[in-house]
């Protein structure tokens, strides 16, 4: 048995195995650190920065989902500085992304007293829903770029490598290479990406249609080809 590492989180002593992250050690104590991009089945990448905490001796805030515990570490998970950072992240997301299908993120926004209108002048992400296959739609207005879909398409599960980031800066988006329809990429339609999407940007076709108000019996009775033919 390897020796456990002793550290302190919010004044409470805790021991965690080597290699554990601050997020995992905090969970042992029942301390809730908010996350968006983190998923237990995916490699953590510290992209959303919502999980930042203060570590004594560290100049910057530290992302708890990837930072590993070390002996004698002293961690603070709530402070004015942390809250301001988290609030700003949430406000920036709310000002540019459609969070209507992300109740967890909206709840965090409220919890941290965020003002969704703070960056009122900002440009909202606006792009058409991509409906290029019979199984799921891609609505990137709802995408927070958590990267989970890219991860499960790659080494976290499927090894299909069909999607990645495209564009730069504000225009960064998840896309196929050369924006090809999924059918023409290496995609195998396993839907691992749909399974880990936290915001409803990736959604099964039937769910999408039900939300659009198409009656269930009509959806059941038709295949996609038949729907297209009727149009």
């Amino acid at each position, binding site marked *: 048995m390897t020796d456990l590492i002793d550290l302190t989180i919010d004044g409470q002593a805790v021991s965690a195995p080597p290699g554990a992250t601050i997020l995992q050690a905090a969970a042992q104590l029942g301390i809730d650190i908010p996350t968006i991009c983190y998923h237990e089945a995916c490699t953590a990448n510290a992209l959303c920065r919502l999980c930042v905490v203060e570590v004594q001796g560290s100049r910057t805030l530290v992302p708890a989902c990837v930072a590993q515990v070390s002996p004698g570490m002293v961690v603070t998970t709530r402070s004015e500085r942390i809250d301001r950072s988290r609030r700003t992240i949430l406000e920036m997301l709310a000002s540019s992304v459609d969070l209507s299908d992300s109740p967890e993120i909206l709840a965090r926004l409220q919890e941290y007293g965020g003002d969704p209108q703070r960056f009122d002048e900002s440009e909202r992400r606006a792009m058409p829903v991509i409906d290029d296959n019979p199984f799921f739609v891609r609505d990137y207005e709802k995408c927070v770029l958590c990267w989970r879909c890219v991860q499960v398409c790659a080494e976290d599960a499927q090894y299909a490598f069909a999607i990645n980031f495209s564009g730069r800066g504000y225009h960064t988006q998840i896309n196929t290479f050369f924006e090809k329809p999924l059918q023409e990429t290496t995609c195998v339609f*396993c839907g691992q990406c749909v399974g880990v999407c936290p915001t409803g940007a990736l959604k*099964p076709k039937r769910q999408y249609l039900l939300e659009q108000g198409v009656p269930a019996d009509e959806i059941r009775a038709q295949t996609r080809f038949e729907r297209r033919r009727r149009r």
Partner: protein
Amino acid sequence: MFHPDQITRTTCPFCGVGCTLDLHIRDNTIYRVTSPFDSVVNHGNLCVKGRFGYDFIDSPKRVTVPLVRKTHQAPGARHPAFDLDEWREVSWEYALDYATERMTGIYQAHGSGAIAAYSCAKATNEDNYLLQKLFRALFRTNHIDHCTRLCHAASVVALQMAVGSAAMSNTAAEVIYNDVFILTGSNVTENHPIIANQMKAAIEKHGARLIVVDPRRIEMVNYATLWLPEKPGADVAVFSAMAHVILEEKLYNQEFIDARTENFAAFAESMRVFTPEYAEALSGVDRQLIVAAARLYAEARNAAIYWALGIPESTHGTANALSLINLALLTGHIGRQGTGLNPLRGQNNVQGASDAGAMPWHYPGYQRVDSEPAAQKFEALWNIEPGGLNRRPGLTTTEILSSVGSPGGVRSLFVMGENPMMSEPNLNVTREHIEQLEFLAAQDLFINETGAYADVFLPAASWAEKDGTFTNTDRRVQRVRQALPARGQARPDWVILCELAQRIEERLGRTSSAGWRYTHPSEVLGEMGRGVPEYAGVRYERIEREGLQTPVWDEHHPGTPFLFTDTFPRGRGKFHPLEYSPNAEMPDEEYPFYLSTGRVLEHWHGGSLTRHASLNEVYPEALMEINPADAARLGIPDGGPARVTSRRGSLVLRARVTPKANPGVVFIPFHFTEAAANLLTIDALDPQAKIPEYKACAVRVVPAGEEDLPDPQARLKRGRY
């Protein structure tokens, strides 16, 4: 926000992996499928069939009313009726009475040998158990088989001969403990996608090394250390040459051979002829590759072998499987975690259907029908007079149909969920036999190519509309739960079978009942557990959260993740001397190509389900894979139409020009009725396992015209390998 009315946890109905599914339902419609990330089999991952392939349930083509044919179908003059106009809607009472009348009539006139049934590896353990019980207990026939005969029969026979078992020795997820593994005759990325993901992770993240032995350049070759591109059917040569090298270089495990095996000397003697040079001449595999593969496998600390239908679906399928088993016994790579002999089972419940006795030679639990103690045991369990059960082993799938029309042959066939008119080899002959039947009943969701010939159609509930259990490829018995009310008048298979059995029993005037009044499938599994020791401890309440791996010897037994730790079921593992034999049909000047058949990711077998699902929209037509060099020589462009002809049939389909096909070998999937690969395949059987040679026959390929295609419009660009 959108919320489900309910989320029902169940088990995937497609392949043998047995993934856990959460069906999200609103307004009686499944609209989303997820999987819990802590699921023991698939860790939250699914493939396209599991996640999106459920909408066949609601296909407008599904039949949910009992039907009988409007016109009488006389033997020899049977014709297929896909059109509902040729059928009459009837009540359940009428349909069941009609089926009872016809089957009992034939039974009373011609005896038990005239009655046969195809059971179904898609149906639950309970459904399969009841079907074989019905036909054994009431019609006293052992002519009961299912598609295991067409997939892993030779693997089962070989494993029973050599070790006395008939299943994967290990858990699929154990692949991460392999240092080296051999994958042969298994296009795992398309046929067991979740196991493929685990294999890729084993290689990329855990340092395992892979040896692929396959006549196709399958996707897993991209991850392989060695690829041995053998000619179809050269398995015995390649694997015996590996054994030859291991023997020559003394890389075998003497301790294991002494302690756990028998017949080593005779086996070693028979391997002398299999020099790498000899194997190269037979298989086309470079001798150096064979030597390297032998060393890699033998010198590994933990090594395992995974195979699928490329091994058994051959006239020498039993020998093929034995050549793999010999390797494991020689090196001692069995009986420990991360080692083993692993036939990847195809159907979601082919393991369970076999365990439940839906086979002509065995009662449930592989207890032979010609064993007096076994027969007496089931006579007691089913309340049958002593000596009542038929002790003669029955006919297998292919034999059942080929006996139709001959004196003493089968006259009445009951088909639950299978589609022999797509899945049998040499379909033109299959059709002639089907046409000769006196009575044919189909119990299914759709009027498929077989059901179209039936006299009566019994509409069954889909997997999402019934309770039960499936046993997956690594012997895990998992729950299937009802998520939806059955559509229309459809009924669960087990209910239909019990209703039918009670009528037959009464009609035959049996004085004692074999017992058909179950209120829930759990009672059926309980009864099966009293006949099958390996299932004795499996109870519904024990598998609510997580399945149990058989054998489960009693209600406290924790299940068995890997087999053969200390001993084999038959005692010592038995080496089998082998000889090379060619395929029933080898390429020649007239028919210069090998044809191999199989499945694609998006479809399932005869296509009854997936061709009625949106899956069909991403793979709408049959494609023949052909090597670029062959295609160029023949003048067939990528996507161009080609005519493929064997000695038995001919069809036209588009070519997919790809290095996935080796030179000299073409591949056609068998899902597509418009270009049914089994029109071409040969109905030659393995003498021991009676499995047909689907993986190798000889064909001729020539360019064809667009107008010759069955559906020129069905064309789609695709990017996946």
